[in-house]
Structure formats: C-alpha cells, structure tokens
C-alpha cells in the first residue's frame, strides 16, 4: 500500500455510502423533473421544463413560496432577536446559571415530532391546556381554535419554530461571547465609554460574525424543517399553512404528481446551494479575520 493512496482508501467507504445515498437519489430527481411521469413513477419521455411550468402555474404553490419565505425569515429573525439577550445573560455570572442553561437547552433535546405533537394537543380548542391556562389567568374570554385557521395556526408554528431554534443559536452566541476578552471592557470603561457604547462597539462588533453564521445555519435548518408543520396541521386547512417541504411531500406522496415534486426538490436544492455558498463565504471571512 503506497503512502499516497492511504488517505483515499480511508475516505472511500464514507464517500461511497454518502454518495450512493445522496447522488443516486439526486440523479433520479433530475430525471423525474425533466420527464413526463405517471403517478407510479414510470417515465414517459423527456418533457424539458414542462414540470416547472406546471408548478409555477399552480397558485397554491406560488402562495407556498411566499409562505416559506415568511416561515424562514420569521423563525430565523425571531430566533436571533430572542437568543442574543439570553446569551448575554447566560454569559454573566449569577446564581443557578448552570440550571438556567440546562433549561434553555431542553427544547433542542426533544425530537421536533414530539414537540409538535405536544403542541398540537396543547393548542386543542376545547380541551387544550393553553386555552384553559390563559383563561385561568384572565387573558382569554373564549376558547380559540388555534389550529383551525391559518391566521392563528401559522404564527403559532413560527413561534414554536423560534422556541426550538433558540438553544442552538444561544450556544453559538455563547461561543462567540467567550472569545470577547474582559480587558477590552475594562479599557473602554476607563476611557469613559458608557454601558450602551460598550455593548454596541465591543460586544455587538465582536459577536457579529457569529450572528451571521447563526443566521445562515438557522436559515438552512428552518427552510428544511418538516415535522412542526406536518405534525400540527399537515399544511392545512386547505394548504393554507404549507411550506415548500410539506407541499413537496404532498405532491409526491398524496397527489402522485411526481414530476412537480421533483421540480420542487430541485428548486430547493438550488436555493440550499446558494445558502451554503453564503455560509462558506462567511466562514472563510471569519477565519481570515482571525488569522
């Protein structure tokens, strides 16, 4: 065994398994997306971009694109806004900090499926504990049928999306905050910088690269996230809470429109590739800034 071949032999099994499970399905999807295909998956001749045309002629799908943007940006921005103060607090020394940390991290530990099932029950109109809790506190007069209409269901789903994304984001921010040396604050305080100025020019400036990375990584995860919406409403009522991933699933496994489903997959793949390039760019810049 020559020295030069060794690394290739070492990466080969992992590469083959990942490539087989990722590239083969990708090839299938490209094929389906560009062919006329029946509901059982039989290819019936090349059709160019006809599947994409059908997709963009579908008003429900167009609405889904906008909703995916609202979902992704809503969850990601909401998460960043909630996570930064939490991380700043957890970075301070106070009694019971490790307990607070464990509690804040809890949502990360539970599978999204379980979280969504529990909330589906908690949001139940007649028997749900959210309604009864809010009524007991006097915040609510009558029961709200949370999941019966998109106008209440979708914001709730976004709120739950935020809740489960906070732990990961706080962890990234804590990593960033731990890299800020205390001497910097002391020096700035001696120079007469106020608390607000110190926050803005030291904390925020040094944590900014981590905010960028958290933004992109969360955007990727949330954009891909399926269980919260699928378990709580299956995109209903009447497709009014569908995002691209749930619509893709319905196209493929409910309505048998395999060609259009494959077209959605490719669109999402292209968008994810763009996100990934942004991430690599940010990560490289971050690394160069450090070097």
């Amino acid at each position, binding site marked *: 065994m020559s020295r030069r071949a060794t690394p290739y032999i070492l990466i080969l099994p992992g590469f083959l398994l990942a490539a087989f499970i990722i590239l083969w399905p990708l090839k299938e999807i490209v094929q*389906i997306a560009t062919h006329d295909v029946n509901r059982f998956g039989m290819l019936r001749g090349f059709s160019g971009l006809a599947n994409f045309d059908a997709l963009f002629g579908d008003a429900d799908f167009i609405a889904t694109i906008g909703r995916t943007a609202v979902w992704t940006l809503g969850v990601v921005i909401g998460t960043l806004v909630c996570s930064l103060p939490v991380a700043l607090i957890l970075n301070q020394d106070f009694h*019971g900090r490790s307990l607070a940390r464990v509690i804040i991290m809890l949502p990360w530990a539970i599978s999204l499926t379980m979280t969504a099932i*529990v909330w589906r029950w908690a949001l139940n109109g007649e028997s749900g504990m959210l309604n009864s809790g809010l009524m007991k506190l006097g915040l609510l007069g009558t029961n709200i049928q949370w999941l019966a209409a998109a106008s209440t269901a979708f914001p709730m789903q976004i709120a739950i999306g935020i809740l489960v994304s906070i732990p990961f984001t706080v962890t990234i921010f804590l990593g960033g905050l731990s890299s800020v040396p205390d001497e910097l604050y002391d020096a700035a305080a001696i120079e007469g910088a106020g608390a607000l100025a110190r926050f803005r020019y030291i904390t925020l400036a040094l944590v900014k690269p981590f905010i960028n990375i958290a933004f992109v990584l969360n955007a990727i995860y949330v954009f891909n996230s399926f269980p919260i919406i699928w378990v709580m409403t299956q995109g209903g009522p009447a497709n009014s809470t569908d995002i691209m991933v749930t619509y893709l699933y319905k196209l493929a496994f409910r309505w048998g429109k395999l060609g259009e489903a494959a077209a959605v997959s490719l669109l999402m793949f292209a968008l994810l590739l763009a996100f990934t390039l942004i991430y690599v760019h940010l990560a490289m810049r971050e690394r160069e800034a450090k070097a």
Partner: protein
Amino acid sequence: MRRKALRSLVYWLLLAPLIVVILFPFAVMFITAIKPPDEVLSPNWWPTHPRLWNFVEMWSATDFGNAILNSLYVSVLATLLALLVSIPAAYALSRYRFAARGAFRQFLLVSQMLSPIILVLGLFRLVVSLHLIDNVNSVVFVYAAFNIAFSVWMLQSYFSTIPLDLEEAAWMEGASPLTTLLRVFLPLATPAMVVTAIFTFINAWNEFVIALTMLRRQESYTLPIQIFSLVAGRYTVEWHYVMGAALVATIPVAVVFAWLQRYLVRGLTIGAVK
C-alpha cells in the same frame, strides 16, 4: 455578595417568560399522561386523581415495546455504520494532505446542508428499487449516510487536537499505518467517538420524515412514527396515552442531551469553519 444575589434575581426574572414557555410542553405531557381517561378531555389543569397506571396501559395500547425495539435497532446500527466509515475519513482529513482533500470537504459540507426531505422522492425510489420498502434496514442506511458529514466534522475537530508525536514514534518503530491507527490513535480518540456516537444516535432516534416515508406497516414503525400514527387522521385520540408515550420516549434522550450539548457546537461550527 448582596449585589450578586440581586443580579441573579433580575436575570432569573428576565429569563422567566422563556423558561415558562419551554417548560409548558413538559407540564402538558406530564399532566395529560396522568389524567384518568374520563378527565382527559376536560380542560382542568391538575387531575382530581392522578393515575400512574396510565403508563402501564399505554405500553400495550400504543404497542410501545415494539416501536422502542425498532428505534433502538435503527439508531444503534445507523450509529455504528456511520462511525465505522467516518472514523477513517476523519483520520485521513486530520492527518494527511492529499489532492482531493478540499473536494471531499466540500462534498461533506453540501451533504450536511441537504436534508433528507429534499431528496425524499429519490430516496424512496432508491429504496423501492432495492426492494427494501418497509424494511427497517433501509432506514439504517439512509440515517448513517446523512450523519457521515456531521460525524466526520465532529471527529476531525477532535482528532486534530491529538498530537502527532505518538503516531510518529509508532511509525519509527516500524508499525504499519493500520496498526498505528488501531493501537495508538483510536484509544486516545475514544472520548470524541463516544460523543459523536451519542449525537448520531439521538439524530436517528428523533428522525421523522424518512421513517414516515419508508416504513409503511405498524410492525416496522419507529417511535416518532408510532406516536404520530396515534394522532394523525384519527377521530378519537387517546391523548393520555399519546402524552405518556411522548414523555417516556423523550426523557432519557433529553437527559443525555442536556448533559452533552456543550460538545455539540464544536462539531457544528468550528468543524465547518476550519
């Protein structure tokens, strides 16, 4: 001292709203799980007679034992398979400079960004053409493959912190690279492998969409699918069993995760950046 006590109080008050929202689902799970059947649909918070026997009934009513065995089978095998192929790859990335190194890392990065849902249609066709539909082994391969990128990054970021000297000494003594890997390097890397294995296990344990797509009969359901099937498309849901099952399925994993979460970020961010 007084100052710190005051500060602690203020911080806890600031965190309180979030903590309430985080603990609320746990309260819902626990309280519903111990409600007697005739009280489940009444919206009172605390049951008049807490009923722990629910958990015993839940076990058979939800076919919990079978689902937990399927979940264990799938998660253990997927973890072992992912580690088996990731350890050599991570070793190669941290110890060798070779031409395809950059390309391999980029491949890993892209595969990490792709979630199975994007490829689910192609994966379904792959599994059908291999005649593995409804076979838990199909899920094992998919989980293992989708965890390779994460595992390699995690492992590599730890491997790079292990000094080269010991391996070099072994090479000097005439040991082959394989012997060195098995006898010198791997024992040092055990903690990293354990942490990586646990996270891969939790990923597999919690996965939803692939299991939903590939497993069509109840005998092959994993826990998330089994519990989801008790809720989806049913007119009457026995919520006290569902919440009991969710609680039992969640708590062990949550405890392990809460204990290990601080290791996770290294694999997720530093590994990707380096």
